[in-house]
C-alpha cells in the first residue's frame, strides 16, 4: 500500500504554484498519472523515488515510513528499492547492455534475475552492445530490464514510451503489462496518451496545476466524458429584451452564449471565463 501526502512549492507551466498531492494505492495496481505537461506528474514520481524532497508531508509504503518531514525522516533513493524508468532511459554509455544490468545487481541479492529479464525482454543478442548503438525501443527495453534487476516492488515510469513510434509503443506496452503481472509490481506510469492509458492502466489520477482533479478507471474518466470545458475571453455583452447574449473568444473561434441576466450582471468585457459544455454532439467533418 502506498500512502502519499505531500506539498511542495514548484514552478508549473503557468508559473509558480503549490504541488499538493495525496492518494493511496493498493499493491499490484497499475496507476497512471495523467495531465498536461508541466502539471507536476514527474515531480510526484521524483518525490516518491527520493530524488526530490517536498516541503511538507509523508510517504508510507507498506507500513514503512520513507518520508516524514515533521519528524525529519527522509530515506535516501538508494534505500527505497524502487524501479525507475527515466524519460531519457539513463543507460550508462560507458557500459554494454550486460554491464548495465550487472551494475544494477545488488551483491547481497539472493537471486540473480538477469537471465530471466534478458529472456523476457528479448535482449539476448544485444548484450555486448553499447547503448549508443541501440534503437530507441531497444534502449527502452534495456532500461526497463535494468530497473527490474533488484526486483523492486514499486515501478515508476516517467513517460517511457513518448519518444517511440506507434508499433514500438504497442510492443513495449505489451512488455510492460507482462512484467507488471510477472513480477507482481505496483506500477505508476506518467503519460498523456489516452489510448495507451486505456490499454494498460487500471486506474487514472488526473493532475492539473499540482492538484488531483479526479480519479477513476480509464474508461470512466475518458470514455464517458459527457462534458468538457472551454476557456475564453468575453468580447461583448449584448442585452436583449428577453435574454442576454455574451460573445466569447475561444481560441480563434467566436461563440455566442445565452445567459441569465443575473449571471450576466457578474460579468464584464475582458473577463476570462470557463464554459462547461454538457453532452456534446460530435460529428465527423470529413463525411
Amino acid at each position, binding site marked *: 500500500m502506498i500512502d502519499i501526502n505531500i506539498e511542495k512549492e514548484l514552478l508549473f507551466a503557468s508559473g509558480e504554484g503549490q504541488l499538493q498531492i495525496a492518494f493511496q494505492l493498493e499493491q499490484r495496481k497499475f496507476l497512471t498519472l495523467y495531465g498536461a505537461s508541466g502539471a507536476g506528474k514527474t515531480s510526484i514520481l521524483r518525490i516518491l*523515488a*527520493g*530524488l526530490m524532497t517536498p516541503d511538507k508531508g509523508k510517504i508510507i509504503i507498506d507500513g514503512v515510513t520513507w518520508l516524514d518531514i515533521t519528524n525529519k525522516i527522509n530515506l*535516501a*533513493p*538508494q*534505500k*527505497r*528499492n*524502487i*524501479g*525507475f524508468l*527515466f*524519460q*531519457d532511459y*539513463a543507460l*550508462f*554509455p*560507458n557500459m554494454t547492455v550486460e554491464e548495465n544490468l550487472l*551494475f*544494477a545487481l*545488488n551483491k547481497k541479492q539472493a537471486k540473480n534475475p538477469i537471465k530471466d529479464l534478458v529472456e523476457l525482454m528479448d535482449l539476448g543478442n544485444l548484450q555486448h552492445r553499447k547503448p549508443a548503438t541501440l534503437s530507441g525501443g531497444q534502449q527502452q527495453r534495456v532500461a526497463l530490464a*535494468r530497473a527490474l*534487476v*533488484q526486483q523492486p516492488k514499486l515501478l515508476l515510469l516517467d513517460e517511457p514510451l513518448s519518444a517511440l513510434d506507434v508499433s514500438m509503443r504497442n510492443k513495449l506496452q505489451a512488455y510492460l503489462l507482462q512484467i507488471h503481472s510477472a513480477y507482481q509490481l505496483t506500477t505508476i506510469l506518467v503519460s498523456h496518451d489516452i489510448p495507451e492509458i486505456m490499454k494498460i492502466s487500471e486506474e487514472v489520477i488526473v493532475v492539473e496545476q499540482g492538484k488531483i482533479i479526479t480519479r477513476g478507471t480509464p474508461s470512466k474518466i475518458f470514455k464517458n466524458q459527457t462534458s468538457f470545458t472551454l476557456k475564453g475571453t468575453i468580447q461583448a455583452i449584448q442585452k436583449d429584451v428577453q435574454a442576454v447574449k455574451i460573445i466569447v473568444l475561444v481560441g480563434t473561434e467566436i461563440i455566442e452564449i445565452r445567459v441569465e441576466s443575473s449571471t450576466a450582471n457578474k460579468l464584464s468585457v475582458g473577463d476570462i471565463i470557463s464554459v462547461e459544455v454538457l453532452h456534446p454532439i460530435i460529428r465527423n467533418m470529413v463525411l
Partner: protein
Amino acid sequence: MLDWQPLFLTFKLAFITTMLLLVVSLPLAYWLAYTKSKAKPIVETLVSMPLVLPPTVLGFYLLLVFSPNSTLGAWLNEHLGIRMVFSFMGLVVGSMIYSLPFMVQPIQAGFAKLSPSLREAAYVLGKSKWTTFRKVLLPNINPALLTGIVLAFAHTIGEFGVVLMIGGNIPGKTRVASIAIYDEVESMNYAAANQYSLILFAITFLILLSVYLLNGGYFKSSLLKSPNDD
C-alpha cells in the same frame, strides 16, 4: 653543449603539478558542478582568477605568504622543515594554483554536460555517491579529463612569472626552461635561448595537437582563450 637540466626540471614540475592538480580538481569540479551552495560563484571566481591575474601578482603574494618572515612560512619552516620560497616545492604549489582553472573548468564542464538522470539512475539502483562517481560519472567524462590534464600540463610548461617570483633562478632547483631562456637572452646567448625555445615550441605543439586529434572538436567549447600568457 646545451644544459638539459632546465628542460628536465620543467617537465618534472609539469608532471608533478598535473598529477597533484588532478587529485585536487576532481572533488572541486564535482562540487562546483553539482552544488546548490551560495558560495559557488565565489569559489568559481577564485578558481578562475589565475586566468586573468598577472602571474607576477600571484607570485608576489605567494612570496609574501610563504616567506620565512610570515606566519605561515615560519610555521611551515619550524614544524615541518619546509621552505616554500626559492624551492622546488614552492614552485609546485605556485604552479598548482596558477594552472587550477585549466584543470577544474574542463572537468566541471564535463560533469555538467552529463545528463542528471545518469546519476539519479545509479542512486535509485542503490549505488552510493562514491560508486556512482567512479563507475558512472568518471568513465563518461574521459575527453574532459584528458583536456584538463593536457591543458594543465602545457600551461605549467609555459609558466614564467609565478616561477620567477617565488622560485627565483637557482640552477637544478628552480631554474626551469622558461627562466633559462630569459637568462640566456639577458646574457646575449641567443643560440642557447633559441634551442630551449624550439624544444618548448615543438613539445607544446605536439601535446596540444594530440588533444585536438584525440578529442576532435571538443576543444572548441573549452577555454583555450588565454594561451600561455607570460
